[in-house]
């Protein structure tokens, strides 16, 4: 966009200029926060949707596959801008934090106060550890390839163990109606959702259990592979979206 400034002639802003630049930083940060809260939350709600909304959708097969795969999109795109243009290694963490803020607001006000669901039934998952790894790996390697392969994989692989301390307790068995259910399943049975019959849940489908009943690691590694591909795709979308190519012509 601009001509490169030779190092020898580079002068940092001072005084009023520096104050103005700092004010601009805060302005952009606040706007970015609201932008990511809104857009990433909407994107996440429309794509991950029920897997993140309900405790009885967080299964060991599809939940760890779908959530990181969708969750890595915005972090990759925002990293492409913040790292490429500013060498700021916080794109993923910023996105995930913004998503969580938006999600918590929705869960408390829309699900609990508006629709009467107990909040423990709609606890969101967190992807903060994966985002921190993604940011730090990009910063230390400065490599799209390495971050895609190892960062993308780590983002997926860390998802389930990160969230097990939150949701593991909901998988304790209870005896209901002469059958065993998890506490999470019982939430789905007891707390009536008119538009959410049990059969709509996309959980435990397919034959991944063939592999010694270990569905989660297989799902997680499948997600890791897909995240490694999803990451560069959204990195390039981010770069394309943040292009100033057309601005220069105005």
């Amino acid at each position: 966009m601009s001509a490169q400034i030779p190092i020898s002639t580079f002068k940092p802003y001072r005084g009023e200029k520096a104050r103005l630049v700092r004010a601009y930083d805060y302005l952009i940060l606040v706007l970015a926060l609201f932008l990511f809260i809104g857009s990433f939350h909407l994107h996440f709600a429309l794509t991950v949707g029920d897997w993140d909304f309900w405790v009885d959708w967080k299964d060991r097969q599809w939940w760890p596959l779908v959530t990181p795969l969708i969750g890595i999109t915005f972090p990759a795109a925002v990293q492409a801008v913040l790292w490429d243009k500013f060498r700021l290694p916080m794109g993923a963490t910023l996105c995930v934090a913004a998503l969580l803020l938006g999600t918590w607001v929705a869960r408390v006000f829309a699900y609990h106060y508006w629709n009467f669901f107990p909040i423990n039934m709609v606890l969101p998952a967190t992807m903060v550890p994966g985002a921190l790894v993604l940011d730090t790996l990009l910063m230390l390697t400065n490599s799209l390839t390495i971050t895609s392969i190892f960062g993308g994989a780590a983002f997926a692989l860390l998802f389930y163990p990160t969230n097990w301390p939150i949701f593991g307790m909901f998988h304790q068995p209870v005896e209901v109606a002469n059958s065993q259910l998890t506490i999470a399943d019982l939430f789905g049975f007891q707390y009536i959702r008119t538009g959410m019959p049990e059969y709509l849940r996309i959980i435990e489908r397919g034959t991944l259990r063939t592999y010694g009943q270990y569905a989660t690691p297989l799902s997680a590694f499948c997600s890791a592979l897909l995240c490694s591909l999803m990451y560069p795709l959204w990195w390039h979308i981010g770069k394309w979206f943040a292009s100033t190519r057309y601005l220069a012509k105005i």
Partner: protein
Amino acid sequence: MKTQFKTWLLAFIALTVLSGLPMSSALAHGEKALEPFIRMRTIQWYDVQWSTQKFNVNDEVSVSGKFHVAEDWPISVPKPEAAFLNISTPGPVLIRTERYLNGKPWTNSVALQPGGDYDFKVVLKGRLPGRYHIHPFFNLKDAGQVMGPGVWLEIGGDPGDFTNTIKTINGELIDMESFGFANGVFWHLFWGALAAAWLLWWVRRPLFISRYRMLDAGLEHELITPQDKWIAKLVLVGVPILVLVLNSVTANRYPDVIPLQAGLDQILPLPAQVNAGTVNVDTLKAEYNVSKRAMVLQVKVDNRSQGAVRIGEFATSNVHFLNADVSNVGYIHRKDDVSNNGLTLDNNTSIAPGEQRSVTIEVRDAAWESERLDGLIRDADSRLGGLLFLYDDVMGKRYISSISAAVIPKFI
């Protein structure tokens, strides 16, 4: 500027006034919007009753009844291979504590058999006070919702009194309203604090314009300091280790966990209640007279029972058309879904045992229009379905036939 301010002020006042106007709440669940042929020829509800319609928070209420799965299931509607008996509520104002199908408790979905007869019972518990319009209904996979009859329930009391305690298989008593909440909030705050620390580490220093200029000037090495790298390495190694340790601690704490359950319940139909073979009804022709709002059915009744029977009721899509001349038409109906004189016959005398008789039934009521059942004649599948109730006055018996026929519209 002044004009703009006035416009905004006016808009604000208008919105304030509008928000203060009385608003009526929705009184239905869109049940009339579903195509009539689906409402008439899928789940045919009857004898649906509530134990009470006025109760308090924590009190139990049950809805029970029967339904017949129509033999003439529409070709365009997927077969009920996964069906879920649900309750339409505005959120969980009640909780569902028990549910039975043919006397068997069940929690998941079930495969229903066309032509099958079932009875059901759902036990609910009041959670939030208010007045709510509630239906039992079936969610049918890939087909949608088929509503049963709706009622108004009034729940009184204090929402703070609601309790829902259950026992795990290991004997631990848990409160479903708060279980796992504090733990979930703790972990979100924990990871949120780490995320905030990482973000603040970078946000505390000049950001966009300054960093862009420095990067442009080739001063990249000044943007990422050795201290930054040291912290990043710590995060890169420490966070995954922490995640795995915490995961392991949780796994040891809850060693007996099981995956979410996804089985389909298998419950066989009852012995035939409808079309049981004692009194057979064959529909010969059905005509709908648009101007009279009357369905004229020509049926052939074959009475193989031991007593004389009379046609007392035709029920379809939760609307009951009664023959006023038959006294023992069973259960109590509310005003909005019953037509007391809606059914008349060309020959109202009893059909003797062993007799075969052709009968013309006129089912005439504005309900065909108000319940949007007359939309049938504009559907691609314009077949009618419903339950015909025949009564043996002497023996006190009831025979039910599920009838169906293509409908011919008569416009004049």
